[in-house]
């Protein structure tokens, strides 16, 4: 079954096309971790059962995640000659009804549809696959087109090109979407140097955080004398709040594998590693399945695509340490020791895994390689801005309406991200800040809403691109508490090797904790500023070097909140327990008893249909009442 000729690749493509666009109805459920957590498993089971019961001529299949997580579980219905309709927030009950309507030819429940797709555009080849044979019928036309849907309108999907479309465990479907065309081109028509040049021309920058030029990195490793050489895919995704690497591995693992083979061929490596964090069991599973299939089809392993090139990949599971995402820490971890970073230089390109030249890139970086190679560096540069070409994936989460993954051209403005794609703030609260770059990044205030998002602008504003987490915060967030939260994280994850980071983060945490408890002292803010600058300058690795960023950026943009805590003993975000109290608005409370039943300390008194009251000294400020109140009657101040 190994593919060694163009004809072989063509056959696989044809087969993949048949399963992507079958001649009968196809129902697809998005089954990545987020979909499953929202109940996609039950929906899938219900569909299978009902299709069998009703003897419907349809296939039920699984796909990865398209990124519109807010609407999970998502179900696509594709009937021959008709547009693809996507339904959101599916339940087993709705799924059954869907099948019933299909079998009774009653037409789809368009009121539950969120968007429709008239044609699939294959990114690699630039071809279009028309789904709707002619003008779609009336009901269909009422459903928003995906390219006009606010969540997708501004997106440009290169890394996520196949996510949510193909079955992640089917190499044929990947090939049907232009997969392995780039690898064919690289192995048969290009030299390692040409490949490297193409990546350089594309100006691709590492999507793992620092944004180092990928072409340059490959070149360093390629020119380094010494054998063997290794390539590594960094899928440790330690940034809390970022999950795009997981999504890519779960939805389109072959795109990463193809990029790695191309990179390995250019660099001259025969062994690769993919380091996946422990919290992503499904990603590991799908990746292993993909590797097995790729080996079977000859796109990985010995004599790839009939050439003389050999390349193997091993999956390494992480064990839960943030600092292992740092490249030298990661290498140490693969070697079986503590994942402690070490001094650079020597860089991994000179002395990496087992002391050999090693090239390490992020999942998204690898997934960007194949389109660049097939369509050329100049095609890639056309997207994004100068110096920041291409696209990157953000995980848009927190207090925005539409949570999910969005791939956008670099240079997009924060406003477009949060208000156009994200749909604004939940519950009509006011936008306060957005956090990017994870624990290494910072918090940007509402006043910077028109900032274009690229590596340099973010850094100038005191934050970072990081791996793409974008956590939106509303007026109910306390910025001092957020800074404390990140310091808790970094002081916990500090490996302890260097003193500024180990001790410094602890001291900063101490001060921040003190402030959030209402015990802040005059001068604490200045002291923090001082400490943060010292730690930034003297730490050994990126963790310590960037750990003060959340503090520095909040000090810079939210100084008044620090003052409110320290001087007035007041928490403007109404979060810090010691500085707030709970009460119930008698105007709004209809007396539904919901909170009364939840209160662990019986601090709420009242009876049915009479507004409730909270007894202040009994309340432990657990927030249970706030969570359950459907009338927004619980006041925190």
């Amino acid at each position, binding site marked *: 079954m190994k593919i060694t000729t163009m004809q072989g690749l063509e056959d696989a493509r044809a087969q993949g096309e048949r399963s992507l666009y079958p001649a009968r109805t196809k129902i697809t459920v998005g089954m990545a*971790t*987020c979909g*499953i*957590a*929202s109940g996609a498993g039950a929906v899938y089971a219900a569909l299978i059962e009902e299709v069998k019961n009703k003897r419907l001529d349809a296939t039920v299949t699984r796909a990865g995640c398209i990124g519109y997580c*807010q609407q*999970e579980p998502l179900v696509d219905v594709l009937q021959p000659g008709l547009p693809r309709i996507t339904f959101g927030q599916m339940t087993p009950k709705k799924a059954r009804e869907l099948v019933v309507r299909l079998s009774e030819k009653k037409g789809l429940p368009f009121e539950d549809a969120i968007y429709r797709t008239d044609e699939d555009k294959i990114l690699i080849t630039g071809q279009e696959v028309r789904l709707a044979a002619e003008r779609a019928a009336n009901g269909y036309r009422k459903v928003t087109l995906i390219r006009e849907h606010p969540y997708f309108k501004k997106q440009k999907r290169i890394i996520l090109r196949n996510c949510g479309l193909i079955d992640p465990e089917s190499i044929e479907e990947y090939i049907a979407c232009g997969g392995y065309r780039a690898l064919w081109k690289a192995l048969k028509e290009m030299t390692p140097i040409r490949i490297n040049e193409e990546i350089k021309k594309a100006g691709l920058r590492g999507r793992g955080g620092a944004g180092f030029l990928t072409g340059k990195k490959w070149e360093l490793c390629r020119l380094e004398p010494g054998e063997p050489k290794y390539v590594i895919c960094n899928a440790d*995704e*330690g*940034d*809390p*709040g*970022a*999950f795009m690497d*997981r*999504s890519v591995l779960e939805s389109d693992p072959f795109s990463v594998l193809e990029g790695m083979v191309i990179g390995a061929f250019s660099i001259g490596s025969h062994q690769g590693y993919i380091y996946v964090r*422990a*919290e*992503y*069991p499904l*990603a590991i599973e799908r990746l292993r399945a993909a590797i097995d299939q790729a080996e079977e089809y000859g796109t990985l392993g010995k004599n790839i695509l009939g050439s003389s090139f050999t390349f193997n990949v091993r999956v*390494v*599971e*992480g*064990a*839960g*340490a*943030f600092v292992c995402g740092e490249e030298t820490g990661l290498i140490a*971890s*693969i*070697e*079986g*020791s*503590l*994942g402690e970073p070490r001094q650079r230089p020597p860089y991994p390109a000179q002395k990496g895994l087992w002391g050999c030249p090693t090239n390490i890139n992020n999942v998204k970086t690898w997934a960007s390689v194949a389109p660049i190679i097939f369509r050329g560096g100049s095609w890639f540069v056309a997207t994004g801005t100068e110096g920041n070409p291409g696209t990157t994936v953000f*995980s*848009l*989460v*927190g*207090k925005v309406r539409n*949570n*999910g*993954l969005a791939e956008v051209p670099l240079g997009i403005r924060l406003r477009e991200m949060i208000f156009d794609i994200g749909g604004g703030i939940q519950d009509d609260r006011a936008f306060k800040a957005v956090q990017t770059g994870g624990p290494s990044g910072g918090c940007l205030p509402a006043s910077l809403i028109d900032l274009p998002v690229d590596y340099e602008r973010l850094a100038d504003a005191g934050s970072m691109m990081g791996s793409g*987490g974008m*956590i939106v*915060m509303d007026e109910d*967030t306390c910025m001092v508490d*957020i800074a404390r*939260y*990140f310091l808790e*994280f970094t002081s916990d*994850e500090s*490996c302890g090797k260097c003193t500024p980071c180990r001790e410094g983060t602890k001291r900063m945490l101490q001060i921040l904790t003190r402030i959030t408890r209402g015990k802040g002292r005059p001068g604490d803010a200045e002291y923090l500023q001082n400490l943060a600058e010292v730690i930034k300058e003297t730490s050994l690795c990126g963790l310590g070097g960037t750990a003060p960023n959340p503090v520095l950026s909040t000090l810079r943009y939210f100084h008044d909140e620090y003052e409110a805590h320290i001087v007035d003993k007041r928490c403007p975000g109404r979060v810090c327990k010691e500085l707030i109290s709970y009460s119930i608005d008698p105007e709004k409370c209809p007396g539904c008893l919901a909170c009364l039943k*939840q209160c*662990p300390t019986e601090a709420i008194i009242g009876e049915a249909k009479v507004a409730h009251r909270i007894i202040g000294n009994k309340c432990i400020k*657990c*927030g*249970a009442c706030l*969570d*359950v109140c459907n009338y927004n009657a619980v006041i925190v101040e």
Partner: protein
Amino acid sequence: MSAGNMNLNGRPRVGVYICHCGINIAGKIEIAELVKFAEKLPDVTVVRDYKFMCSDPGQNIIQADIRNGLVNRVVVASCSPLMHESTFRRVSSDAGVNQFLTQMANIREHVSWVTADSQDATAKAKALIGAAVHRVVLHKPLEKKTVPVHPDVLVVGGGIAGIHAALTLAESGKKVYLVEREPSIGGHMAQFDKTFPTLDCAACILTPKMTQVRLHPNIELLSYSEVDSVDGYIGNFDVKVRRKARFVNEDKCTGCGECTVNCPVHNRIAPPEHPEVEPHLDHEVKSWLTNLLEQYKGRAREALLPLMIEVNRQYRYLPRDIIHYMAWRLDIPLSDVALQVATFYNVFSLKPRGLHTIRICMGTACFVKGSGRLLERLERELGIKTGETTSNLNFTLEAVRCIGCCALAPAIRIDGDTYAHVRQDRIPRLLRKYTVEGGVKV
């Protein structure tokens, strides 16, 4: 030839002397029936009853019989030995019978005073007398001797009783060793607020005494120690006390407790660095590990982490014997495996985890959406802190930084299942789903 010797040589001749104790005994028990019964017992030569056996005339009856050679063993059925055993022993020895050849049957405190029915009382008295006769035949004459005694005292247990005993003895000039199992003396009283019934302040009584113990020149305090064995006999005991390891200079220690918190061997994996012999491991587990190892031929160091992950997955923690075996097998120092690698990575635990592990996401997205309050709720519901396991070993609660479901925040993962958009009021239901009625079998 002394009387004692003569008596020894002959066959046992038992005299039974039944006391009326006024009406104390005779009022309830049929004395005549007892006499008849006793006369038929083997080896009994004389049976007599009398109003007050302990009186001089009573004593004289016994001595006369001994001197007349009628009796060489004595059974007195009367009151408690506490009352008159010494009296009757003296009576016997004064008349020339070894004092230990005397036996009492307690038919007053054990029978007449406490039995309602007279027939029952008589029957029980018979049984006691019969037993005493059988027993006295087997007695051996004993001699009193004086032996040297070690005057030092060991008090076991440093509660309030032990402390008080130690102080009293020490005051009277004895050297006292006070052994206490815990790091500090004080015992239960240290945990009380008030004492019954006077409602005095417990600490006010206890604390000065504890200080006195420490300062008393005659008391040697062996805290954090346990008695391993006691040999010897009264006055000459040999006691082994095991002092638990502390490696602390007691003269300098202020008892701040900082070291216990930071002790790396807290988890009881003390490394004998390179064991010569293969550490013991269950055969099945061994072949399972060997199979896993096959994939990593010649790459021992690289195998370490995946292997530990696999073991951790299988057992939900890293069992001590497997760690020992793995270190030996991979030829990696145990301190590297156990103390460094195992404690560096968050997924490993050196303590057994519960049947279900609850991993609550404390990533940024979840934090912003209130996972902190969820965590507090879980702690309250389970009655444990983060990182701990419930006492019935059902749940372990852990906080993780992001499980990749940030768009569905706040998220919780229990074992392999992820739950999205979790609100506080859902937690009791979630926990019930993973709770087995009647507890877990482990």
